[in-house]
């Protein structure tokens, strides 16, 4: 059996591997500006998008990335498939393998699903989000967006703000930022912070005190269900202490930028004024997504099989 390469979490990469993908993403961003935005590099390869959770951005962006590399794309969404008839994940995966797919991009509500797939089938696996666990391509596209604006990230400070506990974006993002030598803060009410410390990450509940240190303010989506779970007394109170608004922006470092993985709750974690401000880079994040995922797919599938590609 051929040894495949995978991208399950940012740990599959070291700093050098991350930088190689980000450098290549610049070239793929240039491809997006050509009259013909398609290159023949993955001609003859097949990429399956296996999505067990709703997603707009990530699925569309993986699909476009694969298509622009000339791969064939199969889109599988759990709601419109044999899953409705009770087919198990394993049988679905084996079906895809029998059809000869080269890579499976998987999103699943259960943490660890991509690792199971890697055991079951002989295809390259890319994690597009598993439960509350990891979302490595989001972390990479966020690094790319930051690096394009700030240059070297070494020594810069980023605060992840909001529902850290339930956020795979924060979990992969904080690790990736540490790899790049950034200072990382996790800002949230105690009920939304993970119960155990994360290496190199400073936990705090005081957003206002953290703001003057921040080059990047990374807002996480606040789900209204968290109130029913009793994690926050009320959304109004959460807004008062943890929303990024124009007043709080005034206390951040000059030139600081605001990021959000989407979809945003305007008026909850982010005010509309901030969401539409020039220092908020959400559309740049989405644009980076296609280039970074092209770089990831190309790195995993583009070279010789069994090569030393990713790490």
């Amino acid at each position, binding site marked *: 059996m051929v040894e495949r390469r995978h991208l399950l979490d940012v740990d599959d990469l070291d700093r050098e591997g991350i930088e190689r993908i980000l450098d*290549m993403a610049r*070239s793929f961003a240039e491809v997006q500006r*050509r009259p013909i935005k398609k*290159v*023949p590099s993955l001609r003859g390869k097949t990429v399956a998008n296996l999505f067990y959770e709703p997603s707009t951005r990530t699925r569309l962006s993986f699909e476009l990335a694969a298509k622009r590399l000339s791969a064939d794309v199969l889109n599988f969404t759990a709601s419109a498939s044999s899953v409705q008839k009770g087919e198990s994940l394993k049988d679905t995966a084996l079906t895809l393998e029998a059809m000869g797919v080269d890579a499976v991009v998987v999103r699943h509500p259960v943490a660890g699903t991509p690792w199971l797939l890697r055991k079951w089938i002989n295809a390259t696996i890319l994690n597009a989000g598993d439960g509350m666990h990891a979302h490595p391509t989001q972390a990479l596209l966020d690094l790319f967006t930051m690096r394009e604006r700030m240059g070297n990230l070494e020594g810069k400070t980023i605060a992840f703000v909001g529902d850290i506990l339930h956020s795979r974006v924060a979990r992969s993002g904080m690790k990736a930022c540490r790899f790049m030598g950034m200072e990382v803060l996790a800002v949230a009410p105690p009920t939304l912070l993970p119960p155990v410390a994360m290496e190199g990450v400073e936990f705090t509940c005081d957003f206002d005190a953290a703001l003057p240190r921040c080059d990047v303010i990374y807002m996480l989506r606040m789900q209204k269900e968290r109130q029913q779970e009793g994690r926050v007394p009320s959304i109004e109170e959460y807004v008062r202490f943890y929303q990024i608004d124009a007043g709080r922006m005034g206390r951040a470092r000059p030139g600081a930028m605001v990021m959000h993985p989407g979809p945003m709750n305007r008026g909850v974690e982010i005010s509309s004024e901030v969401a539409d401000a020039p220092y908020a880079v959400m559309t740049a994040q989405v644009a980076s997504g296609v280039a970074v995922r092209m770089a990831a797919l*190309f790195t995993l599938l*583009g*070279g*010789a*099989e069994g090569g030393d590609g990713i790490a």
Partner: protein
Amino acid sequence: MAFRERTRVMDADDIRRAVQRVAHEIVERNKGASNLVLVGIRTRGVPLSLRLAKAISSIEGTEVPVGKLDITLYRDDLHTVSTPVVRETHLPGDIEGKNLVIVDDVLYTGRSVRAAMDALMDFGRPASIQLAVLVDRGHRELPIRADYVGKNLPTSRDERVKVALTEVDGEEGVYIGEEVG
């Protein structure tokens, strides 16, 4: 695998003269330089294209736009490369209707040039594409020939040709040798 040189076939003066002559030939063939764009294939085609542009502008008194092209995404041997790396491609404006000259250091199988032409076609429809190389070492695997050649260099397939340019290698010279190790 390391390169062991056996013979130096061009020195700095030879390279300079070859670039000068090719610049004259390009101007002559295209009746001037007004509609020309030079495109260097990475890595060593890029400094060569800049040298040619400088030579042409001193002959004709007009600036010639220069671009650089990374052909990795268009290679036909990608499946044999363990860690392909894609670098920057930059073309100076629209190539629609232009006379393009692809510039490379060594012409061998012709496969790089095929990839370069495919890449360029994705940027627009040039009026023509020509090919300038410093060294033509023969052994074509595709029906491709150079319009401008600095030096024809008969070689055997087991030999290697190495072009060294100051901008990339810190020295000048063309060498024949073999892979060792």
